[in-house]
């Protein structure tokens, strides 16, 4: 599976996406809902917060991984603000996979979120995926859930 690509996903970011994500992650910092405050910080508009960016990356990876997958580790790098109106595209690739806990594989993914001409953010992600249909990695007991490290940044 190493080197396989995830299908790209395109989205248009709305102000509602940003405000809803911030509120749902209990983040009341004004740069996520108050454009005047954000512009006072020299930002172009309100910006998407880190948990929402993380959630969008995770949703993208989990939709690809399918039923029974489970997020294990991630590293998020935010390079440019994600603002309303942005046309963004998620893409990713499988770096490698290894045998994981009983019934599961560890899969390392390299993901990015780009606008037309620049990388906005990137995520290194490790997830567990069932090695057979019907498996459920959420059921892996704690005494065998030992996610290996991400690759160095």
């Amino acid at each position: 599976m190493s080197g396989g690509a995830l299908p790209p996903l395109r989205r248009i970011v709305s102000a509602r996406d940003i405000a809803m994500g911030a509120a749902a992650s209990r983040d009341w910092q004004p740069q996520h809902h108050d454009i005047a405050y954000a512009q006072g910080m020299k930002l172009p508009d309100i910006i998407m917060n880190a948990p929402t960016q993380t959630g969008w990356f995770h949703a993208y990876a989990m939709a690809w991984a399918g039923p029974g997958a489970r997020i294990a580790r991630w590293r998020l790098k935010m390079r440019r603000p994600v603002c309303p109106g942005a046309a963004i595209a998620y893409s990713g690739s499988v770096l490698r996979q290894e045998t994981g806990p009983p019934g599961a594989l560890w899969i390392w993914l390299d993901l990015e979120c780009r606008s037309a001409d620049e990388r906005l953010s990137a995520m290194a992600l490790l997830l567990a995926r069932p090695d057979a249909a019907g498996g459920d990695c959420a059921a892996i007991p704690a005494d065998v859930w030992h996610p290996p490290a991400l690759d160095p940044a």
Partner: protein
Amino acid sequence: MTGIPDDLAALIGQPQFAQVSDGAVEAGAIRLFSAAVQDGTPAYWADDPAVVFAPPALLSAWNRPVMWHPDGDAGTSGLALHFLVKDRLGLPRAIVAEMESEAAAPIRPGVRVRSEQILVDLGEPCTTRLGEGRYWTIRVEYRCAGDGTLFGAETLRFFGYGAESAV
């Protein structure tokens, strides 16, 4: 200021600011966030409380305080140790240079989450494109308030800068 102040050095490796979430994890909050990020993972939408668990992206959210409380005790900073270090060093600005998280046991509805903040390291003064400042790393551990089960941890590496005098 050069070197590492003794009071900050004494904090390294010592859990600080233990805090328990102001409410229990609940399925409605999980669905709201899952809708916000359009995540259709079945476990986030399940009706059976024994099946549903929270998206790992919400790991830190449970311990962010509400902005108003009838007792008047609300709105404190979620990452108090970061602001303590920043203020002690006289660095008015800081960015998150890197953030890494791990998900351990699934967080299911009904539990309260306890967090502790640990100063992992504090660097000597250095200069980046943002100016003169320092790096520091804080690890936040999230556990079940009831039995101590580890739910996950975040490791955040900050760069603080912007002091009017040398740091």
